[in-house]
């Protein structure tokens, strides 16, 4: 049920409807599992082709086309193929998968079983973060119900195809959201991401077998692609940005929350749907797709050329709210976690908060990231505490530049991008902040609260 008329709800269609519950009878009363039944009348390769044709892109962060990801699976190795749902939703600002798992778990199971059949999967897993204990229980219960009715487990829908589904709980490590770290964790090890190549999950994944790792929302979309057809799905949103996306908005807006939309601008989401800034405040900056993504400063212009040669010149509110739109503005839509920073927020203190996060979450195997993230925390924290050194702003940038691109996984970019972009767009504020905080008469309580790192 849409919360705002500008929403276009597909995945969350029933989630907030009064009386809608996570149990299987409720799901089936809305036509649930009908698409799975139909899937068994098709050939697995036809389902894969349909998903590829839909141009569905991953909803977890990188936006890689799901159909292409599936097409890379090594089907000739003779080894079992595994499917893992990445439900380790941990990117600060993101809380969409939580809604699906809590309110409509069977939709995920149906999407997963269609995907499993399409890829001849031997066993499927849902890797869920530890901090969502209730969602894990809801999923366990839903899987039991689905098994009883023959939609999961042995001989699904009487087709002769069997696929067990297991919920695996993490233990509070953000890096498990990185797919190869997740696989290591599922194997019972530290979640140290693997080097690609050779460890592309589609070839050498779980137990060195071909493995597909897809996000919760992506797998739900598979169900809807099979239900409405790739053509209809492709008509939602823009080409190469097909389907709806669930955006999570937090921070300085009047109506924070999760909204499923397609084909709108960033301004429509922030101002129309979320009601814009709180009374008496203005929007200073927007982190568009989770805390790792480069910040957009309100007031800057985003200029460039469209693929057809025409030119665009956008304010932050004009940016098309999709993968390509936000990429054209120099950032990424990531996991859809949008954080709005209003004029009461100190950018350097916000960065200090995030650097505590990243230094805590670095897995530690690559030196630039392990050491660098800690230094970024130390430097930003000493700025907050009025102990900045004259060259600290330059030092921050230098450390970030030495992490980006020099690590095994993309976490290095996730640490570096906030530092690089915040300084690029708010350098003056950083320099003023360092000086101002160093004045012994300055009241530092509010910036300390924002940094919230007790360091």
């Amino acid at each position, binding site marked *: 049920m849409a919360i705002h008329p500008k929403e276009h709800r597909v995945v969350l269609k029933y989630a907030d409807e009064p009386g809608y519950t996570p149990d299987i009878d409720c799901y089936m009363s809305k036509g649930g599992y009908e698409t799975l039944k139909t899937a068994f009348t098709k050939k697995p390769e036809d389902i894969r082709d349909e998903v590829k044709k839909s141009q569905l892109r991953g909803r977890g962060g990188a936006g890689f086309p799901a159909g292409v990801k599936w097409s890379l699976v090594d089907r000739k190795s003779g080894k*079992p193929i595994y499917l893992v749902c990445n439900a380790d*939703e*941990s*990117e*600060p*600002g*993101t*809380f969409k*998968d*939580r809604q699906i798992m809590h309110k409509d778990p069977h939709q995920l199971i149906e999407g997963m079983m269609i995907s499993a059949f399409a890829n001849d999967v031997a*066993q499927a897993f849902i890797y869920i*973060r*530890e*901090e*969502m*204990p*209730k969602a894990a229980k809801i999923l366990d219960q839903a899987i039991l119900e689905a098994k009883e009715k023959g939609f999961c487990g042995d001989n699904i829908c009487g087709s002769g195809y069997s696929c*067990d589904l*297991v919920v*695996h*709980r*993490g*233990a*509070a*490590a*953000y890096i498990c959201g990185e797919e190869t770290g997740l696989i290591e*964790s*599922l*194997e*019972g*090890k*530290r*979640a140290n991401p693997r080097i690609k190549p050779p460890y592309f999950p589609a070839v050498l994944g779980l*137990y060195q077998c071909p493995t597909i790792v897809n996000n919760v929302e992506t797998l739900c979309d598979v169900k809807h692609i099979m239900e409405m057809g790739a053509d209809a799905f492709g008509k939602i949103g823009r080409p190469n940005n097909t389907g709806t996306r669930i955006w*999570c*908005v*937090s*921070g*300085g807006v009047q109506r*924070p*929350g999760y909204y499923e939309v397609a084909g709108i601008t960033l301004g429509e989401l922030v101002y129309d749907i979320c009601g814009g800034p709180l009374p008496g405040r203005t929007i200073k900056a927007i982190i568009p797709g989770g*805390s790792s993504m480069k910040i957009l400063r309100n007031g800057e212009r985003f200029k460039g050329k469209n693929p057809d040669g025409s030119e665009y010149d956008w304010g932050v509110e004009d940016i098309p709210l999709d993968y390509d739109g936000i990429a054209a503005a120099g950032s990424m839509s990531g996991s859809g*976690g949008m*954080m709005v*920073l209003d004029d009461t*927020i100190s950018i350097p203190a*916000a960065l200090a*908060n*995030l650097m505590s*996060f990243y230094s*805590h*979450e670095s*897995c530690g195997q690559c030196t630039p990231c392990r050491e660098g993230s800690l230094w970024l925390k130390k430097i930003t924290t000493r700025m907050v505490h009025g102990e900045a050194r004259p060259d600290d702003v330059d030092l921050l940038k230098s450390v970030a530049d030495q992490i980006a691109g020099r690590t095994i996984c993309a976490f290095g970019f996730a640490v570096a991008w906030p530092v690089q972009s915040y300084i690029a767009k708010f350098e003056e504020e950083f320099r003023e902040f360092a000086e101002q905080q160093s004045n012994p008469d300055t009241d530092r309580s509010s910036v*300390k*609260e*924002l*940094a*919230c*790192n*007790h360091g």
Partner: protein
Amino acid sequence: MNLKPETLAEIEASILKYPEKRSAVMPLLHAIQKDVGFVSNEAAEWVAGKLDMEPIQVLSVITFYPFFRQHKVGKRHIRVCRTLACAMAGGSKVCDRMLKEFDTDLNGISPDGEVTVEFAECLASCGSAPVMLVDEDLHENLDEAKASEICNKIKAEAKNA
């Protein structure tokens, strides 16, 4: 290892879920921590024996994941989110109020043994910030007054227990 019968049953069932035994290390540690409150070296050795692993391999898992702990905590485990969306909405003040109400320090055990209050990284509920987990229950849209209410409830429950 002195574990409850239901913990042992859960452990045996967990091992069967995976194609390779070692994958059950986290489920086993979860089950033991839930039963005993933390994971001791003895428990790590026991898990290693159960899954044909070396004790150091189990220990390397315990020390990597923040949720696994090698020490006791209070009867109730309180985790206040500290990451950006919650911090912008006043998470720091909420945490301070919890600490004051229970007369305790961050990460310590309150004098009455009832709670341990910690900061946690993003709990994935930024739209209803600030939030905290009390054991498995998520509390949303908090402020200092609501934090005090939750503290009073915990204290009342402890008295009636």
